[in-house]
């Protein structure tokens, strides 16, 4: 098993598996957050329901943290090995039929920015100001207020939109590559898999981006 993990192929399986955990999570996260488009109260109630289920919350957080750790460690090790394998660069870069796909070239770069985004995102919201509100007689955290406060600022909205577009690029390559790394590529499904990566990325990134944009133009709470 140690041999498997230390091999380049084994690390690719770990990258794919940990990436899959996050790709699945962000889809659910995006869908859940759509409640902010409906009403702040519904959003707060949704958030309260999640934090009330302590065992599930803890298990999910542990799985995500573990997967992130594996993903980042493998990425660092693989990138280091890859750079050692190709120390000198070519003077000319190819274009046309033999040029590489754009997203695949910059995985480490947008991956690093996404990591910074995840940390700043948690600091802004999960560990941000604590407001309280009452929905249907239940006392709960008013996360919607914090969201409305932050997404009034153009620089915050801009940072979110840019990070989410990068996340989309990361996903187009990631989702497609999982099938290859896991050995699930098959001639019959290959064209579908190619498109699946793009569709998934557009749905997730587009869904997320709609939220800060909506809040920015919705001006103030309750409007």
């Amino acid at each position, binding site marked *: 098993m140690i041999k498997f993990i230390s091999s380049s*192929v084994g690390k690719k399986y770990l990258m794919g598996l940990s990436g899959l955990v996050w790709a699945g999570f962000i889809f659910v996260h995006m869908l859940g957050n759509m409640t902010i488009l409906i009403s702040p109260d519904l959003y707060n109630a949704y958030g309260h329901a999640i934090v009330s289920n302590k065992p599930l919350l803890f298990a999910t957080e542990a799985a995500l943290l573990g997967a992130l750790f594996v993903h980042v460690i493998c990425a660092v090790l693989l990138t280091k090995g890859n750079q*050692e394998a*190709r120390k000198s660069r070519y003077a*000319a870069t190819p274009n046309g039929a033999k040029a590489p796909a754009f997203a695949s070239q910059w995985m480490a770069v947008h991956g690093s920015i996404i990591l910074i985004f995840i940390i700043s995102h948690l600091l802004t919201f999960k560990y941000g100001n604590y407001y309280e509100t009452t929905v249907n007689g239940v006392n709960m955290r008013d996360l919607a207020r914090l969201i409305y406060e932050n997404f009034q600022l153009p620089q915050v909205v801009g940072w979110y939109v840019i990070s989410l577009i990068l996340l989309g690029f990361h996903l187009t390559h990631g989702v497609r590559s999982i099938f*290859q790394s896991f*050995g699930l590529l*098959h001639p019959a499904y290959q064209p579908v898999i190619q498109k699946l990566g793009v569709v998934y990325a557009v749905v997730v990134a587009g869904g997320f981006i709609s939220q800060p944009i909506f809040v920015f133009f919705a001006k103030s709470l309750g409007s």
Partner: protein
Amino acid sequence: MSENKINLTLKVWRQKGQKDDGQFKEYHANDISTDASFLEMLDAVNEELISKGDDPIAFDHDCREGICGSCGFMIDGNAHGPQKSTTVCQLHMRHFKNGDSVTLEPWRASSFPVIKDLMVDRTAFDRIIRSGGYISVNTGNAQDGNALPIPKQDADEAFNAATCIGCGACVASCKNASAALFTSAKISHLGLLPQGQVEKDKRALRMVEQMDAEGFGACTSTGTCSASCPKDISLINIAKMNKDFLKASLTKKPEAHAGDGV
């Protein structure tokens, strides 16, 4: 077909030996027939260099029919030149325009050290083959060709993988200098056929291990390898290699010893 003549400016990587620093040098290829192959164009340039007493440009070549895998270098950053599904010996000068400036570089990968100019040392591939790219057969009379039934699809797929000529374009064009396409083609080629089943697990484990030991990078599935492959080897082989490697890793049996059953 009327023969046209063109003039080219070549920027060629010149390097005396493995330990030396290389540099680009400019050469002029004049009156080159558009019917000539790229290597014939280099031959003409070399003739001129030799007649002037200069050192000719070193490049690997053998069959010049696109089947041996000896030739190959980067033309303007494209492995084997801009044309798809072609080795550089089968690339013809009609694909270039009069007055074009062309940059020639050797394969660049830490596992492929430059021997001289455009020649690189590809023995790392030989060591990968030696680690598991073989099957065991009984010696004696040749078997009847149809003695072993093989489904047509498997035979075709194995044959497609077997067309890999080991030129190294996949490694050269990959940003990670990964040898995944080459190694996986060899694993698929033998693993798809009944003759290759005995060593199937051992082959996947050993060849991947050797590929890593040679210092090749990991596969990021950019697809440049397959795009620049003169034989159009499919990325699906890499998926198959990964699957074989996982299965072999999970089901590896400990060595059996006499008396284990007691």
